[in-house]
């Protein structure tokens, strides 16, 4: 999906492999690789030194090495949990087979495994929630943005409400969303857990706005000459939106979508923490409550993971943008 030629940091390697002017490529490598690596090294050093100076009630603040170890431990716990789960099902199958051998009329039953969620499970839950919230928000925000971008009247009608709701913190929405979801989402056999709906709706409410506003601005900024072309051709409303409005608004729309996705990810962690709904936020909160000597290191692992996933999500949006954008020469960053 991400074309290799667009990854500037890869280019010197490719050229080096092809044997194009090695000295020049090495200099380019130093610039694209060595400098960022030096920055990271300096950060790690500073972190290690500062961590040693801070003593908390749970012991010294974890340095890079402690965090690295706990990262490994979390992965190992995940693997152990999976082995446990596999073994659990294996035992049930054996037992069922034995009972069926004795009594052929026995209907075998498989009990679901109810082990605790590992770090990896929590990451997957968070990713699922953020995707659901973001997709739902985009499905609402893009059409709304197009509508208010096309009509001055609608824009004036919606703008005050949008401006009012935009700065609201997810923590303010959460109690309301929780109560409403509890009241509305009643089911004996729910398809998805209530906490998932609560986090998703909170994420949606907070990340709608950048996409709405950017789409509206992009749509309103369509070149007037192109609008005149559309009028002379008497394009129907849908054709007009599809052939003229959407392609011109595309860059602005994606700027909005990227901001929205960033906000969605930040909001999700806070919502999970406060709502006790499964995910990375809950992992952090549980570690904080747990208060063992490893807790701070584990929280740091979560912090770094949250940052890395946020970064990857942004890159992913960028890749999607360059995939659907008509202007392949545009410099996306």
């Amino acid at each position: 999906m991400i074309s290799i030629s667009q990854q500037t940091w890869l280019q010197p390697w490719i050229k080096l492999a092809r044997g194009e002017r090695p000295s020049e490529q090495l200099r380019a490598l130093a610039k694209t690789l060595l400098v960022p690596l030096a920055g990271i090294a300096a950060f790690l050093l500073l972190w290690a030194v500062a961590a040693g100076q801070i003593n908390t009630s749970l012991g010294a603040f974890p340095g890079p090495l402690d965090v690295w170890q706990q990262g490994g431990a979390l992965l190992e716990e995940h693997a152990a949990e999976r082995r446990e789960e596999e073994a659990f099902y294996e035992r049930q199958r054996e037992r069922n087979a034995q009972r069926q051998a004795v009594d052929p009329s026995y209907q075998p039953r498989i009990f679901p495994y109810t082990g605790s969620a590992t770090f990896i499970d929590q990451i997957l839950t968070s990713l699922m929630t953020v995707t659901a919230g973001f997709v739902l928000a985009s499905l609402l925000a893009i059409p709304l943005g197009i509508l208010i971008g096309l009509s001055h009247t609608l824009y004036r009608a919606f703008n005050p409400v949008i401006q009012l709701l935009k700065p609201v913190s997810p923590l303010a929405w959460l109690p309301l969303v929780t109560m409403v979801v509890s009241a509305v989402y009643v089911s004996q056999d729910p398809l998805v857990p209530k906490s998932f709906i609560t986090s998703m709706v909170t994420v949606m409410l907070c990340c709608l706005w950048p996409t709405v506003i950017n789409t509206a601005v992009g749509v309103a900024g369509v070149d007037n000459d192109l609008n005149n072309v559309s009028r002379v051709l008497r394009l129907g409303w849908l054709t007009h939106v599809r052939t003229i409005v959407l392609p011109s608004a595309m860059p602005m729309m994606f700027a909005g979508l990227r901001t929205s996705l960033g906000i969605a990810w930040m909001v999700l962690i806070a919502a999970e923490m406060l709502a006790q709904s499964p995910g990375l936020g809950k992992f952090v909160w549980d570690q904080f409550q747990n208060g063992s000597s490893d807790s701070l290191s584990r929280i740091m692992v979560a912090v770094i993971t949250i940052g890395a996933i946020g970064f990857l999500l942004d890159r992913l949006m960028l890749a999607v943008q360059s995939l659907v954008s008509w202007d392949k020469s545009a410099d996306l960053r």
Partner: protein
Amino acid sequence: MSHYLDISKISIDFPTPEGPFRALDELSLRIKKGEFVSLIGHSGCGKSTVLNILAGLLQATEGGVALDGKEVNEPGPDRAVVFQNHSLLPWLTAFENVQLAVRQVFRDSMSKAEMRDWIQQNLKLVHMEHAMHKRPDELSGGMKQRVGIARALAMRPKVLLMDEPFGALDALTRAHMQDSLMEIQRDLNNTVVMITHDVDEAVLLSDRIVMMTNGPAATIGEVLNIDLPRPRNRVTLAENSDYNHFRQQVLSFLYEKQRKVVEIPREPAVDEDEAAPARGKVAGLVDRLGRRA
């Protein structure tokens, strides 16, 4: 059919905080089928406003326009417009840009294959068949304008409206485009209304030149019949006394009778070129040229 396009007493007012501003005042003009008419005048005299009213993009406050016996009150493909800055959709290729227009106009009357032939035929007419599948950003300014003309011609319009079609091109490309346009005009004999501020272009291409007075409340000053034989050749015409006479008449209208008064500060000479753009660079240049002429 003597009056194919009938413009009768059109006036237009634009609302301003100080009350309505009358840009055009009772402009009347009758254009025959197959006639090539140029509108010439200084910047801001309302030439583009006239064209936009003909296109239906603007509504006259008073008076009206009739084309082929029907009143014009909204934009439509029977009055195709060639815009000054090509106005091609940058995300579509030359072919797709023309296709958008052809699909819209001949949806019910042409098959897919017929449409494809018709699009290619029009791109061929403007000598763009070699770059059919290129996008506007891969084409030069002149080529983009050719595609814009192909798009307009492909609508098979009753009137072709051209808003300074070659104004943004360099002099050599412009001459080339004018020759192309004359060639197309010889084959198709379209009814054309073209806006220009290039005197040579107007005399070379037109059957009639309509000279507009300066605004506000602009209207037609003089109309000049250019009865030079066709086909016209710019090189041989350069020594033709009729041609030079027509040129002189247009120049005299623009720079003597309708001299645009633009104040240019007398003080330091350096200042003049810096201050001019703010006040309308074109108008300033026109004034200086006018004084020299």
